[in-house]
């Protein structure tokens, strides 16, 4: 009997502890504004190294959609003010903040979100408790997507990657991002955005070897309406993320961009420096 009482006491204590812990979690969630319908624990495995898989789609080299979204006058002015090296407005003397082809500036500023997806390098998805990490081969950028139930800060600092929170809806991982600075473009074609940019991603794994990312752009200052694009990936099970250091692009920029002559219309080709030697 005494043993039974002890057992009952133990069970009650456990139940109380669980209940209290739930209250704590609820209070924490309430403080951060989380809705209970959003699953924070993974309901889909997205882990792995992924390579973009957009075969035959020329527009996919620079954007998320073949269409030019309808812009506000403010957005159009910004669009026409830049010189991308890709897309409908491509320039040989591009001033792209990531890959300039003019001057001696190496570039290397972060592509930002969502443009980082367009850089043609692998992406590793890493799911950890409370966070999903995106480890990009391009310059080893790491993006944190918090899945611990928090909300965005009320007045976030404006950064290259923004503030990202995520949750699971069935087989879909939803990512919501705000707080992006105005230094980046939406894509490599120079699509503009403002500091009001709100990016919503729906990430699915339709089969074991495929990843689909639908990207919705909500920026009323730059666009007349919300628009969406996408990026598909294929699993590369034997790949690891390799080293890529953008700051080490100096040799390439000097030899190819500056000195090869390809980007200097007035510069004659390098040639005719010595007579040919007979072939062996």
């Amino acid at each position, binding site marked *: 009997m005494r043993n039974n009482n002890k057992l009952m006491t133990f069970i009650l204590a456990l139940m109380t502890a669980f209940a209290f812990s739930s209250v704590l979690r609820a209070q924490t969630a309430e403080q951060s504004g989380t809705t209970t319908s959003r699953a924070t624990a993974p309901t889909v495995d997205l882990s792995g190294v992924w390579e973009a898989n957009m075969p035959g*789609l020329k527009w996919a080299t620079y954007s998320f959609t073949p269409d030019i979204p309808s812009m506000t006058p403010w957005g159009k002015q910004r669009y026409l003010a830049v010189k991308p090296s890709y897309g409908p407005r491509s320039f040989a003397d591009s001033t792209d903040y990531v890959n300039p082809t003019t001057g001696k500036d190496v570039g290397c500023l972060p592509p930002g979100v969502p443009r980082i997806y367009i850089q*043609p390098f692998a992406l590793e998805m890493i799911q950890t408790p409370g966070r999903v990490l995106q480890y990009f081969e391009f310059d080893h950028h790491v993006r944190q997507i918090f899945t611990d139930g928090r909300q965005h800060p009320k007045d976030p600092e404006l950064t290259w990657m923004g503030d990202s929170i995520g949750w699971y809806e069935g087989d879909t991982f939803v990512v919501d991002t705000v707080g992006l600075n105005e230094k980046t473009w939406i894509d490599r074609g120079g699509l503009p955005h403002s500091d009001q940019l709100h990016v919503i991603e729906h990430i699915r794994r339709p089969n074991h070897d495929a990843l689909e990312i639908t990207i919705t752009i909500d920026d009323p200052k730059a666009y007349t309406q919300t628009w969406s694009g996408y990026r598909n990936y294929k699993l590369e099970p034997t790949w690891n993320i390799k080293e*890529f250091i953008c700051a080490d692009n100096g040799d*390439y920029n000097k030899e190819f961009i500056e000195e090869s002559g*390809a980007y200097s219309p007035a510069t004659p*080709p390098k*040639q005719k420096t010595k*007579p*040919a030697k007979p*072939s062996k």
Partner: protein
Amino acid sequence: MKNRRVSLIILTGVLLLVSVPVLAHHGTAAFDMNTLTTVKGTVTKFEFMNPHALIYVDVAGNKGEIEHWIAEESSNNHLSRSGWDKNTLKPGDQITLAGHRARNGAHVLEMQCSECSVTDSQGKVWPYQ
């Protein structure tokens, strides 16, 4: 004399219709993507690096002069995943490059296209990766 002759073949066509998108570090506005240019020559340097590998080739011109060509390949990250390494091309190798030449006439080839390829000294063809 025959071997000293410039081996330059220009194929003009509707390559845009069959091209697969280029995944280059920068755009291709500086290159004539409608024309495939083939160059035969001797490797003088091969830099297996990021963001793009560079192949330096000396090509004998029609008048006995040497033309110094530079070809831009994919990154070493991409190339290494398809079998390339830093020793794939070596100085002295006789190779053939098929790529898109700079619009301004510079001896520069953009090698990142589905129709682009490198044929090494053993006759092995390395397609764009």
